[in-house]
C-alpha cells in the first residue's frame, strides 16, 4: 500500500500500515466512515471527520476547517518540468505583450497583461534573464497552464 504524492519539495512516498480496519501513518490512524468520509484519530488524541474527493489525479481533503490537496503521482510517470517557462495562471485573453524574443529582463519586470474574469492580471518575471520565446500575441486566448513565454535565467 505504497502511494506517491507530489509536493513542493519533491515526491513524498507514503507507506500505509494496515491495523485491523484502520490504516496508520506517523501516529495518525484512519477508518472508513459513512457517505464517503473518513474518521481520523490524530496522534494528539483528537478525532475528526475528513471529507475526501478525487478530481483527476488530485485528492482533496477537508479536515478541521482546512482543505488540503495532494496530487497522486502514478507509478512510473515523470512529471513534466517546464524549466523557465511562464504559464498562464488562469484562462484568459492577452491584453499586452511588453517583451520580444531576445530581450533581457529584470526580476519583477512586467512581461504580459492577461484579462480574465473581467480583471487584469500582470505576468512578471520572477528572475532576471533573457526572453527566449514569446508564444502568444495581443488578443489571443490562452488556456490555463499554457506556457506564455520562456526565459533563460541569467547566470
Amino acid at each position, binding site marked *: 500500500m505504497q502511494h506517491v*504524492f507530489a509536493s513542493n519539495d519533491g515526491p513524498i512516498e507514503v507507506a500505509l500500515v494496515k491495523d485491523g480496519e484502520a490504516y496508520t501513518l506517523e501516529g495518525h490512524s484512519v477508518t472508513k466512515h459513512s457517505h464517503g468520509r473518513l474518521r481520523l484519530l490524530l496522534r494528539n488524541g483528537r478525532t475528526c471527520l475528513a471529507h475526501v474527493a478525487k478530481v483527476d489525479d488530485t485528492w482533496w*481533503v477537508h479536515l*478541521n476547517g482546512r482543505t*488540503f490537496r495532494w496530487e497522486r503521482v502514478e507509478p512510473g510517470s515523470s512529471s513534466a518540468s517546464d524549466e523557465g517557462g511562464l504559464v498562464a495562471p488562469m484562462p484568459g485573453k492577452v491584453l499586452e505583450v511588453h517583451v520580444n524574443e531576445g530581450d533581457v529582463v529584470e526580476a519583477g519586470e512586467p512581461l504580459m497583461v492577461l484579462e480574465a474574469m*473581467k480583471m487584469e492580471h500582470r505576468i512578471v518575471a520572477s528572475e532576471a534573464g533573457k526572453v527566449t520565446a514569446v508564444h502568444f500575441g495581443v488578443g489571443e486566448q490562452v488556456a490555463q497552464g499554457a506556457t506564455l513565454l520562456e526565459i533563460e535565467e541569467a547566470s
Partner: protein
Amino acid sequence: METIEGRVGGLEIKVLVANRGEIACRILRACKEAGHPTVAICAPNDDGSLFTELADEVVLLSGDSIAETYLNQQQILAAASKTGATAVHPGFGFLSERADFATAVSEAGLVWIGPSASAIEKMGDKMTARQTMRAAGVPVIPGEEVDGDGEGALATLRQAAERVGYPLLLKASSGGGGKGMRAVHEPGEFDQAAAGARREAIAAFGDGRIYIERLLSGSKHVEIQVLADQHGRTIHLGERECSVQRRHQKVFEEAPGPTMTPELREAMGQAAVAAAQAVDYVGAGTVEFLLAPSGEFFFLEMNTRIQVEHPVTELVTGVDIVREQLRIAAGEPMSCGPLMIRGHAIEVRLYAEDAANGFLPSIGPLAVFRPPEGPGIRLDTGVREGDEVTPNYDPMLAKLIVWAPSRGEALEKMRRALDEFVVLGTTTNIEFLRDLCDAVPVVDGSTTTTTIDDLWPSGWNPPHDLMLEEAALLAAASAETMGLHRRNATGDSSGTAQGPPSPFTTLQRRYP
C-alpha cells in the same frame, strides 16, 4: 371581494429576472413567495444552473459572450414579450444600472423594478452624482472631475492630480466594483495607473472618463440602505460596514457598524435620504460613504440597485428588501414600520479563488459542496454540488451570512460556519475568510479600507500545520487504497451491495 394579502391595490406582475446565479435565485424565490409568476433568461453556458430551476419559465438566449446574452437588451426584451412577462428585475451587475435599459423596458410597456432612468443616469455617472450631491448639501470627497476622455485628457488629469494631491484615487466616471479604479501614491505612478484605469473603464463600460478623489486612508466604508415607494415615503434601514475590501471588492460586511452611534446613524441616514430624494429615487438603493477617522463622512456613490450585501440589513432589520422592491414596483406602499435594529449580522463572500496565490480566480468542479447549517445561518448561492466553476462569470460562489444577538457571538458563529463549510474540487477563499475572523482589527471592529493590505502586505498564506498536513496525506492515501474515488451517485463508496436492501428496490420489484 377577495384580495391577496400584501397585494392590496397592487399590480399583478409576471417578473422576468434579467440576471443569473445567486442573485437570480434570490429574486426568483422572493417572486415565488409573493405569488408572482417568473421567467428566467439563460445563456447556453448556464443551461442547467440552479437559478433556471427556480423559475416558472426559462428562455434560452443565444450567443457565447456576456454581450450577446445577459447584456443583450433586444434579446431580453424579446424574451419578455414572448413569455408575456410584465416586469423586469435586473438584479445587480449586468444591466442593472443602465439607464437606457430602464428606458427600453418602460417603453416596451413593462414595469422596471428599480429607480427611474433619470435617477440611474444622475447617480450612474459618478461625476454628475458628485455635482448633484454637492447641490443637495451632502458632503463629497475632496477631488476633481475632468471632462473629456480623449488622449489629451491624460494631461488634464495629471494637472488635476497635482491640485488634488497625493495619495489619490483614479475612478472611472461610469465605474463600479473596483473596475477602472487605481490608487496612485506618487506622481511617478500616475501615467501607468491612469492608462490602466482608462483601458479597464473603456473595456468594462465603454466610457474612459476618469475623475480624481483624495485617498482618505484610515477610513471606514459605511453605506446606508434606502427604500422609497411611489407614495412619497423615503426611509433608510441603517448602515452596513463594508470596510474589509481587497482590490476594492468587498469580502466581509456587517450590520450594524461596530463603531456606529445612534447620532451618527441618524446623520448619515438623513444624508442618504436627502441623496435619494435629490434624484426622486424609487425602490431600493444604497448610498455609500467614507467615514473618516475624524468622524466626518463623505458621499462616495449611490448604487441604484439591490446590493450583494443586502442580507445583513435584512437580518438585523427584519425587512425583506427584495420583497419590498416587488411591492414598490407594483405600486403598493412599502410595508416597513419604524427602523428597529436587533442583534448583529455578518456576511462573507465565498470566491472561487486561490487566496494563497495572489487571489487568482480558480476553476474546477464542485465535487463536494457542503454548506454549514444551524440556527442563525443563511446561505445565498447560485451553485450546488456537482456544478462546474467556469471562467465565464464572476468567481463569487456564495454569500454566507450569520446572525447572532451580539457582534462577538456573530463572529463566533461565522468561525464555526466557515470551519464546517466543505468545498472540494475548486480552490476557494474559505480559509482566508476564516483567518480574517481572527484578525485583530476584525475582532475589535477597527477595520478600514486598507485592513487586508495592512494585515498581509506581501500576500496571504494559510497557517502551516504539519500535523494536519500529515493527517490529510494519510486520508488521501487511505482513500486511494479504499477506492473512495469510485463512488456512486449517493456518495456511498460501495453502492448498495453492503447492508440491508433498500425498501424502494423491493417496492419497484413488486410493482414493475
